[in-house]
């Protein structure tokens, strides 16, 4: 029993040694990982944010938002990547499409529900004072919905960064290329790459929280 525990501890130590010994490899793979995740998240935001926000503004399309969310959760990314192989072949776009599909549901549903939930009286006042529909959305609904919108983006970012590891099986590179290749990198390499993925996801979540805090100036309560 002790020998097993010792072996585990040793793997951890080795993992950090692996990081120290292979900074270049990890940096390249992390960059690939970020490129893939960033592209997927960016495309997902471009597609899902305007649709989610506008549907929320109209208080319509609840069924659509909910359906997209459920389908997105039910479809395993691995299946999508395998499916995509037959359409896009091996490489970047196949993986990107699979990750976009993964990222859209949390972004879209959160954007929808965030705007949908903004106090109707506030919106009524805005419209009654002569704001155009776009002004109502941009000046009133969006700022008030921002925290929830950002929560959706944060969930999507974490999903995408974590799931981008399986891109390696379709030739997508990234940190997953190390994780699925135990034969070459050993337990230490696999663990080291896993730690990097975790760190990335954590970092992304942190950065998005900070951005959200900076973007939404909430009233300060009087002591």
């Amino acid at each position, binding site marked *: 029993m002790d020998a097993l525990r010792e072996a585990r501890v040793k793997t951890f130590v080795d993992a950090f040694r692996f990081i120290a010994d292979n900074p270049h490899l990890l940096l390249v793979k992390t960059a690939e990982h970020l490129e893939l995740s960033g592209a997927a998240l960016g495309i997902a935001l471009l597609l899902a944010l305007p649709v989610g926000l506008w549907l929320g503004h109209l208080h319509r399309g609840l069924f659509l938002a909910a359906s997209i969310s459920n389908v997105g959760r039910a479809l395993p990314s691995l299946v999508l990547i395998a499916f995509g192989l037959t359409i896009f072949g091996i490489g970047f776009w196949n993986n990107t499409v699979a990750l976009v599909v993964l990222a859209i549901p949390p972004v879209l549903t959160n954007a929808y529900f965030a705007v949908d939930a903004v*106090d109707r*009286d506030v919106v009524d*006042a805005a419209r*009654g004072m*002569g704001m155009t529909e776009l002004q109502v959305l941009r000046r009133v609904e969006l700022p*008030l919905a921002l925290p929830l919108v950002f929560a959706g983006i944060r969930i999507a970012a974490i999903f995408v960064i974590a799931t981008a590891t399986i891109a390696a099986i379709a030739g997508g590179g990234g940190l997953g290329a190390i994780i699925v290749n135990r034969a070459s990198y050993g337990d230490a390499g696999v663990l080291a790459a896993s730690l990097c993925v975790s760190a990335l996801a954590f970092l992304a979540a942190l950065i998005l929280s900070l951005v959200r805090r900076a973007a939404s100036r909430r*009233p300060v*309560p009087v002591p």
Partner: protein
Amino acid sequence: MPGQAAELVFDEATKQYEGRDEAAVDHLSLTVRAGEICVLVGPSGGGKTTALRLVNRLIPLTSGDIRIDGTSILDQDVVRLRRGIGYVIQQVGLFPHMTVEANIGTVPRLYGRPRAWIRTRSAELLELVGLDSSYAKRYPAQLSGGERQRVGLARALAGNPPLMLMDEPFGAIDPIVRARLQDAFLALQKEVRKTVVFVTHDIDEAIKVGDRIAIFRRGGRLAQYDTPQAILERPADEFVAEFVGADRALKALALHTLAELDLGAPAGGPPCPRTSTVRDALALMLQMDAQKLAVTDERGVVVGSVTREQLLS
């Protein structure tokens, strides 16, 4: 930006929701004269709020017309129409993510006014509604209900609209603050002289603030449209009489102040300011068990006297 006061005309204005037998507003015709406060009052479901929201087209007309200074609301761009109409609602609807100043500056900003201009205007309006300038940088969450309502009023006035729509503006506020807000609003109206359409379900509020009162009955039909005095003295039918209340004779006493009476020579007795209503003066008299009151002016100087008989005649 607009200014002055506008005449508002409802001309057979009707709102019929699809799939409902009864109209929400049924062939409503009435004229609100420029600079007057018209109170829409009635039971819930009477269509008074719907009638109000027809004016700024938050609810589209089914048939008929509404004209502001002779121009049909249907002939104007809806966004421009709304910017020219002040709008105050019960829940105030202040933007929680904006300061008081930014809230007040909403319409001027839509008109493209520069920042400095908006700041000056906000300060003026805050003073006008009785809040000091330190409120400018606060957020709505930091205000009391009454203060919020004042800011809502200032915001509606910021574009200097010739017409104001107020939907139960003091409805959610406790009676004491409410009375104070009503007084502040009436004092303000003396200065700005807007045309105001004011919705309430409270007949006492209607009597207090209205130059004219429109009483609605269920089905969005106008039961009576007249001055408070006329409605109290000559209710058009049983419905109006019942809605106004059995104590309408007493309510009528609240329509006049001591200043309107022929006061007797200064005499002793409990002091009462001449701005008090006859009703309040009577209440004071009964409470103090006095036969005479000493009527005072704004500085508290006794200027005359009034007897019980005088108040009741």
